Each structure stands twice: as structure tokens, then as C-alpha cells.
């Protein structure tokens, strides 16, 4: 099974060979490195840009204005903050031009904690991203979803932010990408650049991949249950699934929804689940004040008030300025398995 870095690479290959992607660029995106997570190795339309995030986003906008399709990368979301007005502008270009200029661009950036990345390699961006009207925002938690969401993002005529959880980049999936060889080693030999090759001789051998799409705006129920609903995405999603598995051993079935798209988001899926369970917890790792989970919890309160058996809860990152390097600091700052388990138990135990 492919890992997420390989899945992204394969989606980009489909993008540049079949979907008209002309430029895949950013710092270290092109040869010889092919991305700090190797997600853009072996592609033909990659190039390295100056170390200039504003230039990267502005260039993506310009390419979009010219009608070309590009995928631009900000190496870590921690470094996207100086582009925020350009992101705002990309989101408002269609609206400000009254429908005359759309921007068919994708911006990818790794997000979140989990790799001992310290203060400037651990930021989340989902709360900020969902405050950029005009953008669509996706965040996969599996390689297959990364592949399908990136294909959809490339095809979309609007700007799409593709947030890839960096701690999941090396995690292997459990579902084959359509066209991916079943043998993991075979895939590695085909599309992974040898570590000692940095001189362009190596060429990938791409599998015959299908244009598999995950529709933007559609979530996925990854665990079914009727006692409580847990809605998450990105790094914390597999942790929520694990909590569901642990509780299932105790005879408690909780439903876990992988939101996958943050804007537009699959409210109908959340709504149907909460109708069934009456209890809901929103989990993510961005800082907790003005958090996207708060918006969802607010909406749950507004739309589902009389369906609820307990108050909607949000478990998010602590409202601290950064993720400290020492494991004690990181673990105290963003939700981990025990935190989620504790919060779910609290939710289940609440008596109306």
C-alpha cells in the first residue's frame, strides 16, 4: 500500500499527464530533492522556486489568471502566514471580478504536529484556512483520500487548499489506490527515487492509475456506532478511530466521521449521525480559541439542539503560541489518544 507521500506523487503525475497541470512548484519541489517529503519526485513539470512564499502564492495566482493549472507548495504551513493577504485575494478574485476570473489553482502545505517539529514545523492551518472565503479546503487522513482529494482539487475550477498532515505522510494505507500495484516493494521500485540518486538519471515508472476522485465536500464514516459521534480530520482522525476500536472492545459503539473537506463540509453526514447518537465531539489540533470545531459545535447547538443528549464538545490544541520541542510540551499542547479517549468517555457519561 502506498503511503501518503507516494499517493500525492501519483496524483500529481495524473495531474500533469492527464489533467493539464503545467506547474508544480515551490521551494525544493523540483529535482533533485522532489519535496522535503518526497511527494513531488520524478515528475516532469516540477520546478524549484526562490525561497519566497509570497512569490510562490502570487505566481500561482498569476498562473491561474492566465488559465493555467498549477499546484504550488508552501514547504510547511508554518511559513504560509506571510501570504495570508494573497490567500485572501486568491479567494476573492472570482467574487471581486464578478465572476470573470476564476483561479484553478491548488496550494499544498503540510500541517500539524507529530514529527517533533518544534515551534515552526508543527503549526496547524485549518482554522485559518476556513476563514478564507472562496477557497475550498481539504485535509486527507489516508493515502487513498489524499490521492482522490488531490485529483478533485486539481480538477476544481476554484482555488483549493490541500492540507496534508505531515505526521501521516509515511503512514501506509489500507485501501489500494486504483491502479496501484498491490506489492508495496514493487511500487517503491517504480516511483521512489533512490536515496543516493540526486543527479537526474533516475526516472520513475508510473503505474496505470485511474482518475479516482474523492468529491470535495463529502465526509466518510470510518467507524459506525450509535452511542456518540466523533468528527475529526487529519492527524487526529486515526486516533479517534483507534479510540472507537478500544471502546468497541468494551461494547460501546461510537461513530467516527472523517470530515476530509473543511469547506464546503459535509454537514448532512454529521447531522444524520447526531440524530442517531445525540452526542457529538469535534476533534482537531489547531488552537482552541476561534477553532473550526467551535463553528461545527455552534452549528450543532443551533441545528440539532433538541436532538442532543449532551452538550457538544470540542477537543483541540491548547491556546499556546507554539508546539514546544520536548515531548512533554508537544503532548500537552495537542490532542493525543488518551485525551480523546478521556473526552469521549466524558461525553458518553454525561447525563442530560
Amino acid at each position, binding site marked *: 500500500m502506498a503511503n501518503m507521500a507516494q499517493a500525492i506523487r501519483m496524483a500529481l503525475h495524473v495531474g500533469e499527464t492527464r489533467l493539464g497541470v503545467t506547474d508544480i512548484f515551490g521551494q525544493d519541489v523540483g529535482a533533485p530533492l522532489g519535496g522535503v517529503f518526497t511527494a513531488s519526485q520524478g515528475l516532469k513539470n516540477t520546478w524549484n522556486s526562490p525561497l519566497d512564499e509570497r512569490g510562490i502564492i502570487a505566481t500561482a495566482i498569476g498562473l491561474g489568471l492566465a*488559465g493555467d493549472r498549477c499546484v504550488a507548495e508552501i514547504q510547511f504551513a508554518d511559513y504560509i502566514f506571510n501570504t495570508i493577504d494573497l490567500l485572501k485575494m486568491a479567494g476573492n478574485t472570482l467574487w471581486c*471580478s464578478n465572476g470573470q476570473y476564476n483561479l484553478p489553482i491548488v496550494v499544498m502545505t503540510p500541517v500539524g504536529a507529530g514529527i517533533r517539529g518544534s515551534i515552526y514545523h508543527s503549526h496547524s492551518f485549518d482554522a485559518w484556512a476556513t476563514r478564507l472565503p472562496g477557497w475550498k479546503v481539504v485535509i486527507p487522513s489516508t493515502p487513498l483520500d489524499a490521492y482522490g482529494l488531490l485529483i478533485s482539487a486539481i480538477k476544481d475550477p476554484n482555488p483549493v487548499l490541500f492540507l496534508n498532515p505531515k505526521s501521516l505522510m509515511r503512514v501506509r494505507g489500507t485501501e489500494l489506490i486504483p491502479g496501484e500495484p498491490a506489492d508495496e516493494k514493487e511500487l517503491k521500485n517504480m516511483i521512489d527515487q533512490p536515496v543516493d540518486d540526486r543527479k537526474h538519471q533516475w526516472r520513475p515508472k508510473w503505474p496505470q492509475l485511474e482518475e479516482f476522485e474523492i468529491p470535495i465536500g463529502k465526509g466518510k464514516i470510518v467507524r459506525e456506532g450509535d452511542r456518540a459521534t466523533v468528527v475529526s480530520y487529519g492527524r487526529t482522525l486515526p486516533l479517534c478511530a483507534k479510540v472507537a476500536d478500544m471502546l468497541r472492545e468494551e461494547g460501546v459503539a461510537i461513530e467516527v466521521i472523517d470530515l476530509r473537506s473543511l469547506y*464546503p463540509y459535509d454537514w448532512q453526514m454529521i447531522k444524520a449521525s447526531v440524530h442517531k447518537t445525540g452526542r457529538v465531539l469535534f476533534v482537531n489540533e489547531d488552537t482552541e480559541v476561534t477553532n473550526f470545531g467551535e463553528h461545527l459545535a455552534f452549528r450543532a447547538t443551533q441545528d440539532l439542539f433538541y436532538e442532543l443528549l449532551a452538550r457538544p464538545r470540542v477537543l483541540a490544541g491548547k491556546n499556546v503560541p507554539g508546539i514546544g520541542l520536548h515531548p512533554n510540551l508537544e503532548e500537552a499542547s495537542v490532542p493525543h489518544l488518551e485525551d480523546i479517549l478521556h473526552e469521549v468517555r466524558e461525553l458518553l457519561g454525561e447525563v442530560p
Partner: protein
Amino acid sequence: MRKTTSLAPKSKRPLKASSKVPAKAAGARQSITISTKATLPKELQLSIYDLMIKSRVLEERLIKVYKTGDAYFWIGGAGEEAFGVPLGLLTHKGHGPEYDYLHLHYRATPTMIALGMPMIDSLRLMMNRVTDPSTGGRNFCNHYCFPQWNVVPVTSPIEVQYGMAIGTAVAQRRRWYTAGGKTPASGKKSISIVSGGDAGSAEGDFASSLIWASRPGFELPMLITVQNNKWGISTSYDTQHGEKNVADRGKAFGIRTAIVNGNDPIETYLALQTEIDYIRKTGKPVLAEFHLSRIYGHSSATGANREPDVCPIELFEKKLVDQKWIKPHETKELWKRYDEESREAAEQVRKEPVPTRESIWDNIYVGSENADWRKF
């Protein structure tokens, strides 16, 4: 012996900040001269003159519309006609990467008039009517958007256009190379033109445009321009910029530079023609700085009143009259005709519909796909 005529202002404007202008920088504009040898065909000069008047009259109409309470804000390019009109005339205009892209700022009415924009479309933008072809009543005046001429949306931030122009230039460069050096079907190799003010050149995006345009082996066909009127709202250039000329910054990147008297339409036309030809021929960038006037201040926020800066139209008009290429009464007729046209256009726009409240949800996504989370 080469004769020169100075178009520089004889005295500094009586604003407080100018009393502290360092002597070195203050002298920069005074050194600008034009050669009487530099010339253009009579018909072209008269055409430029005509468009300059049309643009100025339009800007003055916009100001009147603001002052009569029919609009909320004015900001514009009055005083930049000698630069903007030649730029519009020299643009290879059309839609898509085979034609020039124009990344303008909010002082581009002269360029738009030269491209062929009807006066009424500027007034529709000014008076935020639903008929406004640029934004449908959503944005300030002079924030034009005309895809048929590759005029991409003008925005209020004063720097972002310098970065976006990189992107369209990358798209154009690709087509240059795909064509294998052949002249495209559109007739000319296309370039990306970006304009901004001297104050905006302090922003990082200006440096981005220099860096990205001059990457070794990946030079971009960009005309990077700065319209230096020596002011950023109330802050003078001379109190903020140590560089003698903004254009000097291009030299560090090996970018060809030009410093032009932007108050002289002939010198500007010839300089733009030379630089644009160079870019079309080489695919390499140019940084060109134009020294010019600001006639009505920054915007209505600072009063939009006539300021004692040199007026490029008055100078050009005098020259044409002195040459007997146009008679004084003909000039008056021209001003009057355009004034009447602008007045009638404003009257018409007053009757046109305004955007509806529910239209805020239109065009957030392509095809007005639902953007309202309440309806997900």
C-alpha cells in the same frame, strides 16, 4: 548641440513633509529633460493628446460625482496621462496568454481609456452599479477588470500585482518556448506589464518581482514599472527612500532599467516602445521608472482638490498649439466635448440598477456553487 526642455516642476509643492526633503533626492526630478528631437507622427501625437484629455475629463467627472454625493470614494490617476495613455496604446491587447497582461493599480484610467474603455464603464464602477463590467458594484473606482484586454483585477493592496505578474509571465514564457521562437498567431510575443507607485516599491512583492523575473536561465518577459510621483498619501519619497532612483534596484539583478520623464507623452511613448520591443525580442525583464505628477492628491480621503503639481496635459497642449498642430479653440472644443460625454454618462448611470442584497453569494465559487454554509 542637444536642446532640452525641462518638464520638471519649478517649485516643490507646499506640503509640510517637503520642507525636509534631502537636497540630493530633491534634485532627482529636476534633472529630467526631454529632447526636442524626440518625436512621433503628428496624427499619433494628436491621438495621444485626445486620449489624455478624455482620461482627465473622466477623472474629474469621477471627482465631481464623489463630491455631489453620488459615490463613496475617489482614487485615481489624474496627472498620469502622459504615462498611461502611451502604455495603453503600446499594449498588445487581447484575451489570454498570447496577449499582454496588464497588472495595473488604481491609477490606470489613462491606460484604460487608451485601450478603448468607454467612459460610462468607469462611472458604473464609480457609482457601484450592477452594470459595472469590472466588479458589478463591488469595488472602488479605478479598480478595473477587463478580461477581454487581459486587465486582471486591480486591488487596493499596493504591491500584490508585482507578484501576480510573475505568474502570467511564467505562463507566457512557456508559450514562447513551446512556439520554438516562432511569432505566435496573435502577431507578437506577449509580455506581462505591471504598474505601481513609488511607495509600493517598498513592499516585499516588488523585490519578489525583481528576483523571480531575473532567475538565471528562467528570465521572464516582464515590464516592471514604477510611477514615481514622490508621494505615498502624505509621506514623501525622499523621507523614506535612500535609493536615488527606484530603477537602480534592478541593476543588482542584471535587469535592464530606464528612468523616464513620465510627464512627457512623447518621451514616454518612445521609451515604452523601446523597452517593450526589447522584452519581446529577448524575453528578458525591464524595470522602468516614470517620474510624473499627482494632480488631485492621493484620493478623496485627502480632499481630491487640484494640487500645484505640473500638469502634463497643459504642457503637451502648449507644445501642440505652439507647433500649430491644433488651434486653441479646437482644444477647448475637445475638453468641452468630453465633459459633455462624461456628464451624459453620469446621468445615464444614475438611472441604472444597483446590486441586490442576495447577490453577495454570487460568484464566490465558479457557477455560483453554493458557498453559504447554512445550505450545505
